[in-house]
């Protein structure tokens, strides 16, 4: 029988290490996640079922050490030239089981990119935070605090706004930053994360990118308060809450990359976030393909397996063709993030915008295709036990996080058509 591995991807881009890790993930989700995922929706507040598999993956397998330099106990992927392609495969595998977990997993590494990714490694901060991730077998999460009240995706819209709308302030006081502000929605808040990267302004209202600061804040720092986690339509493994900073003090050198560079490398976070979103979406579709195979092989219409009906087969074909195309686009997107020598730096407007274009194109295709698959399964498409409905709910959120479709469209138009006033 065909498997999800029959879907195409550019073999040229694969690496032995990346594939080995991917196989480990495959095995992990099959044993530790898929058997339990149907209860995850009700576990949204407690994470009693969701945390143990994460402990295994992040803590015991040590995946959370991935980005840090070897000499600090990490695996050194931060200075590899295949990080994104390897991450794409990892994200696919986790999302195959649960895309909420995939988001939570991806965000562990998101803030760490600022300090552990070549060519802008911040050695001092790596040394500071590596032990937190590398010297434990417990799962350690990070979070990236961007979104603010009323702001929505404004911060992700940094090319246009240049940070002018950031309300969270970082004021220098001696050799410390004093942070005040209110953030919404960061993945891995609601008590999950131990380390935060907070997008602040050192000069409210300024349109000078120099004043955008990304500052690391341990969640146990004084003045950090997290709210109740939000109840959502799905993606229970991705916990979100309000987070407040009240005169929270951290050392000056907790700033990620420094004036100018913080906003520059924010682009890297955007492009890898976009790449990851495609991987989540593809992983979801691949699992739906598996469940769908089961359904159309076992259910009959006119005494033949459902898949033998030409009209149903047309929907099945469209779904397979969509996976083919989206996966190819996703891997190319990842490759573009890995090879600045060929495609330009991953934080460049070109790469950032292209990942946005690829991402929203894929999301639109997936949502349409998954909706049709769910419908073909009739009432079983809406059953938790068939898993498709859960993926249908979750993938919609993948489309909308990090600033939804309209923001992507504006940025794409701005770059490809050189619009000046959008």
């Amino acid at each position, binding site marked *: 029988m065909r498997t999800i591995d029959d879907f195409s991807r550019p073999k040229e881009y694969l690496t032995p290490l990346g594939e080995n890790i991917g196989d480990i993930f495959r095995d992990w989700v099959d044993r530790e996640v898929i058997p339990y995922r149907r209860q995850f929706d009700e576990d949204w507040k407690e994470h009693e079922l969701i945390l143990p598999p994460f402990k295994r993956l992040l803590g015991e397998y040590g995946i959370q050490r991935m980005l840090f330099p070897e000499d600090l106990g990490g695996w050194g992927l931060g200075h590899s030239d295949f990080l994104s392609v390897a991450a794409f495969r990892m994200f696919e595998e986790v999302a195959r089981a649960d895309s909420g977990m995939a988001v939570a997993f991806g965000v562990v590494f998101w803030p760490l990119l600022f300090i552990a990714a070549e060519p802008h490694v911040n050695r001092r901060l790596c040394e500071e935070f590596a032990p937190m991730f590398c010297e434990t077998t417990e799962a350690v999460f990070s979070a990236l605090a961007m979104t603010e009240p009323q702001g929505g995706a404004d911060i992700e819209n940094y090319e246009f706004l240049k940070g002018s709308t950031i309300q969270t302030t970082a004021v220098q006081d001696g050799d410390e930053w004093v942070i005040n502000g209110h953030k919404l929605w960061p993945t891995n808040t609601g008590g999950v994360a131990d380390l935060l990267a907070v997008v602040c302004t050192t000069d409210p209202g300024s349109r000078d990118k120099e004043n955008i600061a990304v500052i690391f804040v341990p969640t146990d720092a004084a003045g950090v308060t997290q709210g109740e986690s939000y109840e959502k339509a799905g993606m229970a493994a991705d916990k979100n809450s309000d987070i407040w900073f009240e005169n929270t003090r951290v050392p000056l050198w907790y700033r990620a990359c420094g004036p100018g560079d913080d906003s520059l490398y924010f682009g890297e976070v955007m492009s890898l976030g976009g790449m990851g979103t495609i991987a989540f979406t593809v992983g979801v579709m691949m699992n739906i393909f598996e469940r769908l195979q089961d359904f159309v092989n076992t259910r009959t219409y006119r*005494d033949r397996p459902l898949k033998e009906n030409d009209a*149903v087969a047309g929907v099945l074909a469209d779904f397979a063709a969509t996976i083919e195309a989206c996966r190819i686009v996703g891997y190319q997107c990842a490759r573009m993030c890995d090879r600045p020598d060929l495609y330009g730096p991953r934080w460049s407007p070109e790469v950032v915008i292209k990942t946005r274009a690829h991402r929203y194109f894929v999301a639109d295709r997936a949502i349409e295709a998954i909706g049709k698959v769910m419908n073909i399964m*009739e009432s079983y498409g*809406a059953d938790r036990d068939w898993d498709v409905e859960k993926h249908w709910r979750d993938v919609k959120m993948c489309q*909308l996080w990090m*600033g939804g479709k309209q923001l992507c469209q504006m940025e794409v138009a701005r770059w490809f058509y050189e619009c000046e006033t959008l």
Partner: protein
Amino acid sequence: MNNLDLFPYQKNRLEDTDLQLASTLHDLVEREVMDKRLELKEDYEQLLKPSMRKIFVDIGLQKMFWPEKLGGEGHNGPEAAYTVVAALEQVARADTGLAFLAAHGMALQASMASRGETDGEACARFAPLFCEGEDAVVVSLVLPTYAEGEGLTKWRGKYLQVTAKKGAEGWTLEGQGVRPTCSGADADLFAVLCGVAGEDGPALILVPGDAAGLKRGDEFKKTGLAASRNADLDLVKVKVPAENCILSGDEAVRKLLSWYYLGLAAAGVGSLLASYEILKEWGDTRVIKGRGQVFKENPLTAALMAQIAQDTALDRLLVYDLAGMLADPGTFGGAGSEAVHTAATMIVQHVYTSAEMAIHHVMELMASAGYAKEWQLERYWRDVKTVQCYLGASEIAKFDVARWFYQCETL
């Protein structure tokens, strides 16, 4: 004027009583459901069941068709189609699932108690259940679907989940792992489309929820429709009296389905209207901070908001068109005709296909507020998709449409 009046519909075809009913329901659901749901979420016992009682019993939707002599309201002429739409739009505005359940009951009433067809034993036997009780009566249907095993009777390619044998003392029904359209866990009455041993056409047989041999499985989790606590059923030698077979033959089944689809389509439109209201509030109040622009004034978001309103408006017109066809059997051939059944199939399928995409777009515009339960939008999104799935695969529904327009014979 109320926002919903911005959406044109065939008002000139409605009776004043229809308009009054709609406005009564509009106010009732605001008060009883919409104002309470932030606190009560989708709680069945505290929110949905009490609301159902008010809508079905106090307002009287479950009595509407039954003849007055049997305690009903006797509003059972073809023109009642407009009443069904006017009412279920409003109910769905508050909760798609409540309207979904109501559509079941009204389709059954239309099948059993339409004007001129109210003299049968079945009508006399079942009217009291709906007209005398103080509780909402939940009706569930068992319709054809795919098969897993073999040997089931087919109807138009799908399988009748239950087989019925007629004996001296009535009917004996058998079925395993039967998937009802709603409320398997707590329906009061199942209207089961059965394959009848020795006959071609299917028969619709009523099975009381407390019938001996009817086993309900556990409620299963599903995407939406909290008002419908669904579970699979096993029917083991379930015996019901002869008169419980309330209709048989393709035309009667088509009549049931045409009314059922009318109600579901109205529920879809009501859900779209509710989504529009949520989006409108978002568009009026949200400011795109970086530009200080009110959300609805941004051309890109406004264009998508317009598309959503357009889909809603056109779907509403189409549902009233369907009501108009049911209301004028002389011109269109009646609910049981292939012409009207085909129109009902097309319209309900179109409404749910366009509603799915429209509510997807609302969610895109509202971003995280779209999927946060707090904003309520996500429940319409889940509910509408769930109804669409329960309606059956649209690819297969198209075979009915193809049979009508192209006279296909083997699909």
